[in-house]
C-alpha cells in the first residue's frame, strides 16, 4: 500500500481538486484506492456526495483498536472509497496530542487497512501542525500542488525547509497547478523554478475544474476530454512511474 498526501502550507492551491481527481484515476487504473479527507472543510467529502460525519467524530477515528475500516464509505466509482471529513476534524491536533506516540498514530491507523488498499491519498488541511507532522510520518510521498505565484512558491520552500529537519522525510512531488500561460508572471516563474524538482505535468487553470463544486463529481466523470483532465491523468502516470507502481 502506497500512501500519498496532497499537502501544501498554503490554502486554495488545488489540493482537494487534485486528491479527488488523482484518486479517480488511481481507481480507474485498477488500484484499490482510498481518499482520506483530513481537512475540516470536507470539500473532498462534498465532491463525492458523502455525508461529512464519522462514527464517534475524529476522536473515535483515532482509536487504533477499532481500525479505520469502519469509517470507510464507498464512492460512486468502482474501487474508490473515502473516509469522510467530520466537523470535529478541526480539533484533530488536540485529540492527537492526548495520544501516546501522536506522531506515529496515523501511520499505525493506516496499517489497519493496508491489505484493503493499494493506494491511499490524504487530503490535508493547509497548516504545519501536529497533524501534519503525523502525516509526514505516515506517507511515502507528499504531492504538493503549487500555483506559479511568489506566495505559493514560498510556501513550498517552507515545507521543504521543514522536512529537512526530519530524520526520514517523505519524497516531495511538487507540480504546477492552476497555470495560466497567458500571464507573464506564471510563465516567468515556471521558467525560473521548473528545474527544482517539479513534475512535468502542469494542470492548466480551467473554470470547468471549479464546476466540480456544483456538479459534485470528479472532473473525469463530466469532462473527460478537457485538457485539465488529461493533465491529471498524465500527472498520476508520472507519480506512478516515479514510485515504481504498475497499474
Amino acid at each position, binding site marked *: 500500500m502506497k500512501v500519498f498526501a496532497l499537502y501544501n502550507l498554503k490554502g486554495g492551491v488545488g489540493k482537494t481538486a487534485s486528491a479527488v481527481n488523482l484518486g479517480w484515476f488511481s481507481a480507474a487504473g*485498477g*488500484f*484499490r484506492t482510498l481518499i482520506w479527507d483530513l481537512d475540516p472543510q470536507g470539500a473532498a467529502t462534498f465532491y*463525492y*456526495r*458523502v*455525508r461529512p460525519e464519522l462514527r464517534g467524530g475524529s476522536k473515535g477515528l483515532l482509536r487504533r483498536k477499532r481500525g479505520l475500516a469502519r*469509517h*470507510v*464509505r*464507498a464512492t*460512486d466509482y*468502482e*474501487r474508490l*472509497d473515502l473516509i469522510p471529513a467530520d466537523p470535529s476534524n478541526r480539533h484533530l491536533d488536540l485529540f492527537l496530542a492526548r495520544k501516546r506516540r501522536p506522531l506515529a498514530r496515523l501511520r499505525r491507523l493506516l496499517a489497519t487497512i493496508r491489505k*484493503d488498499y*493499494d493506494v491511499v491519498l490524504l487530503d490535508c488541511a493547509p497548516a504545519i501542525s501536529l497533524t501534519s507532522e503525523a502525516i509526514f510520518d505516515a506517507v511515502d510521498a507528499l504531492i504538493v500542488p503549487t500555483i506559479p505565484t511568489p506566495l505559493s512558491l514560498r510556501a513550498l520552500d517552507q515545507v521543504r525547509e521543514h522536512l529537512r529537519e526530519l530524520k526520514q522525510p517523505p519524497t516531495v512531488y511538487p507540480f504546477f497547478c492552476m497555470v495560466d500561460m497567458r500571464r507573464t508572471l506564471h510563465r516567468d516563474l515556471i521558467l525560473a523554478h521548473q528545474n527544482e524538482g517539479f513534475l512535468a505535468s502542469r494542470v492548466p487553470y480551467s473554470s470547468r475544474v471549479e464546476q466540480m463544486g456544483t456538479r*459534485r463529481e470528479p472532473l473525469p466523470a463530466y469532462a473527460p476530454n478537457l485538457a485539465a483532465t488529461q493533465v491529471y491523468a498524465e500527472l498520476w502516470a508520472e507519480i506512478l512511474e516515479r514510485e515504481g507502481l*504498475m*497499474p
Partner: protein
Amino acid sequence: MNFVVAEGSLDALLSALSDGGSTRVDREPCRTETFYDSFDWRLYRKNTQLVCRRRRRAVVASLITPQGRLEAELNFAPVFARDLPPSPLFDALGPILSVRRLMPVARARRRPRTVHVLNEDGKTVARIQADRLEVAPPERRVKWTTVKPSWVLRPLRGYDAEAEAIGERLARLPDVRRDSRSELDRLLGEIGREAGGYSSGFRVALERQLPAGAAVRRVLATLFETMRVNEAGTIADLDPEFLHDFRVAVRRTRSCIGQMRATLPEDRLKPFREDFAWLGSITGPTRDLDVFVLDLLDRRTELAAVWEPLVRLVQRDQRREQRKMAARLRTERYRGLLARWSAFLAADPVVGEAAESDRPIVEAAAERIARKYARMLTRGAKLDAWRATDALHRLRIEGKKLRYLLEFFRGVFPAETVGPPIAALKRLQDNLGELNDLRVQQAALPQLARRLETDGRASADTFVFIGRLLERLAGRERLVRREFSGNFKLFASDDIARLIR
C-alpha cells in the same frame, strides 16, 4: 444478495424502487466474457471469480473477490499467475492459484444494465445489476442458452443498512425469490454443469461397522476416480498438479493395497501390485523435474541473468521425460491395467475372501494405524538426524503410509482423535520431505554443471551461481536436520500416542 425473477423486466425493478428515492440506469453494449478457474476450482472455493473480455486487441481481466473488484488490461488471456505482470491482480491471483493453470469454465454474453439507487444527495447507496445474460460451455461452436432474468443487489461499503432495506423491499415483490448462489453457479446450472467438482483432498464416506473388504474397496475406488480425472491433464502436461495428484493417487493405492492386504483377496491382488509399482516408476522422473523447474522459476528474480541457461536445460529434460511418460500412458499395458482394476473394484466382495475382510473397518483400521505408529516411534527414536540420511528417508516413507491410513479412514473415527496426529505427522513429513528435496537437488546440480560445461552454453557466472546455490542448499539442509528432533518429539509425545492407542 441475488434475486431470481420470473418476469425480469427492468421497469418492474424501477417501479419497485420508485418510492424509496431516485434511480439512475447505466446501459453498456453487449460483450462476451469467459470465466476462468483452475481444475480444482481454487478461485471458486475462495468465493472469487476471474472473468476476461476482449477490448480491442487487449484482454481485460476482472477479478471479483468478496473484498471488491480488481481489473487489469493484459496482452493475452491469462494462463498461469506467474505470467502476469506485477500488479494488484497478480498479487491477488498468485497465492490462490500457485502453479495451477487457468482453464475456461464457461462463456457468457452480457448486456450490462446497472441500476444505481440514489439518496437525497444524489449519492449511490446501492447498485443492482440487472444484466441480460446468455451462457455457453467454454468449448467453441456450442449453442447459447438464455439465462433466467435476475437482479443482483450489490451493497456499497458503509451503506449496508440501505442495501438491506432495498433487499427486503425486493424480496416482498411477487414472482421474486432470493437466491444465494453466485452468478457463476447460476450460469453453470443453466448449462447443466456444476462448480467445485474436483478437489485434490481425499474424502470418502465410510460407516464404522462396514466390513473392511468393502470399505477398502470404496477407498480404492475413490483413488481410482482421482487417477482417471487427472489422466488427460497429466498426458497433456497442462500443469504439474495433474501429474502430482495422479501420482499421489497411485501411491495411495499402492499403500492401501499393502497396508490393508489382510482385507483383500491376495491372489487377485498380486498382479496389480506390480502394475501400480510400474506406474509409480514411469511417472517419477517427470515429477522430480517438475519440482526442479518450479523451484527455479521461483528464483527467477534472485538469479537474474544466470538463471536462463540452467532453467532451459532443466525444462528440456522435463519435456523429454514428459513425452516418454505420456507415451507410456497410452500403451496397452496401462489401458489393460485400468480395465482390470476397474472390474476388480466393481465386483462385490465375497464373504470370507480374506482373513480380515469381514471385520468392521473401525477395528481393522485402528489396529493397523496403532501398529504403524509404534513402528515409526521405534525407528525414529534410534536415528541420529545429523548423520542418518537413508534412515530418515525410510522413516519418511513409513510416515507417508501412516498418514495415508489416517486419511483413508478418518471418517470412522471422531475428528478430535484423528486431527492432532495428522497435524503432528504433517509437520514431521514436511520436514523430512524438504530434506529429501534438498538431497535430490544437491545430487543433481553438479551433474547439470558438467553438462552445461560440455555444451559450452553457460558463462562463468552460471557456475559461480551453481556453487553458491549448492552452498545455500547445504546450509538449508543443516537447518532442516536440526528441526527434525523437535518435530519428532511432538509426534512421539504422550498426547499424540494416547489418541492413537
